[in-house]
């Protein structure tokens, strides 16, 4: 985020990794039925309770049915590319939103923090889903309250499924970006945009049987989108994001200007693009 000091950023990154490590331990410790789809409701409830306590320690969680709506196909057509839509239902000002895939190896898939230039109305992303699981969306309002909603989806193998036959080809255009405006540009009016980034988002779980080695994890860790220097969103993401991530978000352009997107991956590569608005496909 533009206003963060390096020390604050380092602290935040450390904190996130501690959460990730904690979650990994937690998931490993939780009981798993032989067939994930046969897991009982009680197990799912227990898993979510443990997860929410690890991610939001000591914080109350309220029913989010009136604040946020979560949509995903009940049965995934492609477990490595499950489209998820988050709609924010009220004028309750939402500061950030978390997407948690309870049964994934790394459950916290995404955390979006909205900036002053955001239009917090609708958000779309694509994720990998490894087993029959609940998805949870948690909206954090400006007053610090947490609202959650859940959806059960049937999918399997999205994390371990081979991304493609050719790792080298998958990295060929890494970092290439496109931005599409999904409506007419009117100064001062909210506008939806679709951001596409070429990145294999290797999650470290895909094994090459020839070498018996796993393709090393390499995935997008953060994305910052700013408009004319003001923050639209900051995303902390993880291995659950699909390859070639596509994110649809809203922003409010007061004037013609520049959308700047900075993505950083786990190999410390930084990808930086600026798009003229409404020039880019508007």
């Amino acid at each position, binding site marked *: 985020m533009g206003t963060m000091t390096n020390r604050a950023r380092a602290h935040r990154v450390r904190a996130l990794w501690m959460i990730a490590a904690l979650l990994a331990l937690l998931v490993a410790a939780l009981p798993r039925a032989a067939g994930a789809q046969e897991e009982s409701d009680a197990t799912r409830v227990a898993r979510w309770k443990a997860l929410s306590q690890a991610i939001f320690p000591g914080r109350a969680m309220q029913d989010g049915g009136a604040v946020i709506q979560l949509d995903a196909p009940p049965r995934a057509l492609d477990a490595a*590319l499950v489209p998820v839509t988050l709609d924010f239902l009220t004028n309750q000002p939402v500061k950030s939103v978390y997407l948690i895939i309870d049964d994934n190896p790394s459950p916290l898939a995404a955390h979006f923090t909205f900036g002053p230039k955001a239009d917090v109305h609708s958000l779309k992303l694509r994720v990998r889903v490894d087993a029959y699981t609940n998805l949870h969306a948690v909206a954090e309002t400006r007053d610090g309250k947490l609202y959650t909603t859940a959806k059960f989806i049937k999918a399997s193998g999205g994390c371990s499924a081979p991304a493609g036959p050719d790792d080298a080809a998958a990295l060929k255009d890494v970092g290439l970006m496109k931005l599409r405006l999904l409506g007419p540009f009117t100064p001062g009016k909210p506008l939806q945009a*679709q951001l596409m980034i070429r990145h294999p988002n290797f999650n470290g779980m895909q094994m090459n049987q020839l070498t018996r080695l796993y393709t090393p994890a390499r995935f997008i860790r953060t994305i910052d989108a700013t408009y004319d220097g003001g923050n639209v969103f900051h995303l902390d993401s993880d291995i659950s994001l699909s390859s070639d991530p596509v994110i649809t978000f809203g922003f409010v352009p007061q004037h013609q200007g520049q959308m700047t997107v900075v993505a950083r991956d786990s190999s410390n590569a930084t990808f930086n693009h600026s798009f003229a608005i409404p020039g880019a496909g508007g």
Partner: protein
Amino acid sequence: MVQEIAPGIFARRGVDEDATAANDDAIANIGFVVGRDAVAVIDPGGSLQDGQRLRASILKATRAPIRYVVMTHVHPDHIFGAGAFQQDRPEFIGHQKLPQALAVRGDYYRKRLEEILGAGRAGPIVAPTRLVQAQDRLDLGGGKLLQLQAHALAHSDCDLSAFEQQTGTLFTGDLLFVQRIPSLDGSLKGWLTELNSLKSVAARRAIPGHGPVSVKWPAASLDLERYLNGLLRETRAAIKKGIDIDAAVGSVGQSERGRWSLFDAYQGHNVTQAYKELEWEQ
């Protein structure tokens, strides 16, 4: 049941179902060509048992040795029967990209298939011992001559077709689907290109990867061509209109419903694949 569809050309129709423990994954069309000196298997089957049954049919039909096992691509329903033929010490023949595809996906496919069929019933992963870079020829004796053609990215990334000259029979592998909905795992645009070049092969009949085992060539490619062209046109139109992937899977290609078996099981998957490929155009 294996049928002799032309002198020395045998084929077994796969059932238009997904793999189940009851059907032994015998869902693809498989067959063999009998020459004076040798037999070539063209696709060994979807499981060890499927391969063993095919081998028993060969032993009934001829005393000629099984010298070649051609694997038309990496998909499990076509090649997991290969283990049944290892005792014959044939050359296992595949596209130059088959070893890499097997390395990346083979074990994943085998595990998934064992989940369906039961432990030990999938069959081993058999790597090709002879690779086709562009073209190759197999002389089976007595005028039976197979011309093998390696294709560019199409249905999959390792499609191989085989043309038997004496009888004018084209084994298309999964470059041709008849009646059963095609499944896209390579490139939509590439498949249309390869299908177009395959149409110039002067064959009397084709044995498709799925569907009736003997069809007129190239007339039998018209349905597939219409399907793929429609998928291309309608997916492009959806992307251009800003229709997102989750909405596109429910709207693209719906005029094809009723023309293909298993439409609802695969249409959404095909649209997802097409969308992923086409959204990066321009």
